[in-house]
């Protein structure tokens, strides 16, 4: 198995340079893994153990009760539920309206299509962290503070630019002949979109789906401003509040971190290859 690695192309000898490089990489990866191990170990220790044992010592007894306690004290029932509801509604809906818009810009001739496209792509460059106050203002004026709708709508809005940008690029690449033939045969744009474009863009859509799921699951700044009632908090807000209240309950704090992070990590591990293709399909074309 190993025999094919560490050789330069067209050579049968092991390349010392590549082996050295590999050893260095392993060292760097060890640094990258350290935080995960430290957090995981701490999450399974009692406070006394954290204080008396070294950072990398394996927990004497796996103290799973930290997770149970942190779940209850951190109100994870509520925050988990809220995060799930928001993500489950936001992600598919956002992809749907983004792909509708991308289809129109890519496949229907209309005046100002270029302008619309530039306006939308411009949105990828706006840091919404800059606009928290006016966003609060709009949502407050609509009477939607502390509601699911009031956070889902801004989330949709800030997801649209990147998704339209990627999907437009993909739809542009679909041979014109196919959709034109269908159009001449009497199919409406909606039929062409649903029967033709959605099925063939499944790989791109799944990549965007996962990226958007993680982004939505992790979002903090907007939620901080728009969801001030603790019964509406999402996981990141719950974690932040947990840190504020129980920062010296080391074991439980780290259990809370693990529980917050785990869903996104699982999604990533299962759908890893889509992630990378989704990230790179738009930004690095040629």
């Amino acid at each position: 198995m190993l025999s094919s690695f560490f050789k330069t192309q067209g050579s049968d000898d092991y390349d010392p340079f590549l082996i050295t490089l590999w050893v260095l990489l392993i060292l760097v990866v060890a640094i990258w893994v350290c935080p995960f191990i430290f957090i995981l170990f701490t999450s399974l220790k009692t406070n006394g153990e954290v204080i008396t044992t070294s950072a990398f010592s394996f927990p004497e007894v796996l103290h799973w009760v930290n997770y149970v306690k942190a779940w209850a004290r951190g109100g994870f029932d509520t925050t988990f539920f809220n995060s799930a509801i928001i993500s489950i509604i936001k992600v598919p809906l956002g992809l749907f309206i983004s792909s509708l818009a991308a289809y129109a810009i890519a496949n229907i001739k209309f005046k100002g299509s270029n302008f619309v496209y530039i306006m939308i792509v411009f949105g990828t460059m706006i840091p919404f962290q800059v606009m928290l106050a006016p966003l609060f203002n709009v949502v407050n004026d609509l009477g939607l503070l502390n509601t699911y709708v009031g956070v889902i709508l801004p989330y949709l809005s800030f997801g649209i630019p990147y998704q339209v940008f990627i999907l437009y690029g993909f739809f542009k690449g679909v041979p014109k002949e196919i959709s034109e033939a269908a159009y001449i045969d009497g199919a409406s744009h909606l039929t062409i979109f649903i029967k033709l474009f959605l099925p063939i863009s499944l790989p791109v859509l799944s990549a965007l789906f996962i990226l958007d799921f993680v982004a939505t699951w992790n979002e903090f700044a907007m939620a901080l401003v728009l969801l001030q009632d603790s019964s509406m908090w999402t996981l990141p807000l719950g974690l932040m509040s947990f840190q504020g209240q129980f920062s010296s309950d080391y074991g439980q704090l780290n259990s809370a971190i693990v529980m917050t992070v785990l869903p996104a990590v699982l999604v990533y591990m299962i759908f890893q290859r889509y992630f990378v293709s989704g990230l790179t399909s738009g930004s690095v074309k040629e």
Partner: protein
Amino acid sequence: MEMKEVSPVVKEKVNIIGKINKIPFKAIHFLLPAMIVYTVFSLYPLIDVIKLSFLNWNGLSEVKEYVGIENYSKVLTQDPVFWVAFENTIIWTILSITIPPFLGFVIALSLNQNIFGKTVLRAIFYLPVIIAPIAVATMWRWMYDPFFGLFNSIFNSFGLEFLIQDWLGDKDVALYSIFIGYIWQTMGFSMVLFLAGLQGVSQTLVEAARIDGANRFQIFKYVTLPAIQPTIAIVVVLSLINSLKAFDIVYGMTGGGPAQSTQMLALWAYTQAMQIYDFGKGSAISVILLVITLMIVIPYLIWNTKKEGKSHA
């Protein structure tokens, strides 16, 4: 396939499609949902923030007083924290567009070689990117704990006591401590983009250079580096935009402290508006940051559209 009698369900389906086909769908119908949401929640706030920056308003009361440029002059002349935040934002941005992309580039180059286990290595390097920044902040805050945190324990057990610091409590160190966490989180992002870019480097060209006797360094300099130039530009621009958004990680690790020494423009705008309830001043800071962002972003967009136009032609 043999045609059987059409079931009522299929008939019904055909009927619906037939009806849908008769509706003259136009571009506007497709665009409307996205455009409404985008206009109300992205474009309108962008304009609203400018309007708010000329008001004296607490965000909730009926009383809104127009004060002209007073908020701006207050921010620029009477607010020492603004200038700290300004300086920190610049330091942070410069570090963000150099260190994580450089590291990402080096790692990508290494992973692009014929070595063992690169898929796993790549996955590990990328893992922190998908973790919520607020969770990264919480993790690192614990690792920086002066008494039981990872860093000080390591230094302690290796007899390197002189390196022990109050990582997030020392004014001179805190910003850089946060940035180390930021490197850990964002390096994988640059790495993945560079890996994709490296896939595009022509293997024929590399092979030709090798046959002509070019060594590893020469191949890198004359083949790989020129081919990957566009990717470098993209990574730097994306890192720049992301760095201006640095909010969660600072909020979670220090909240701008100690003594406002890690304050950033985005966070300071938030603090003014949402915690001190001075929407006018908060908005003025937002507008200043927005102008800085646009001064960088718009030239890039123009350059990019021109390039796209050329490649389509």
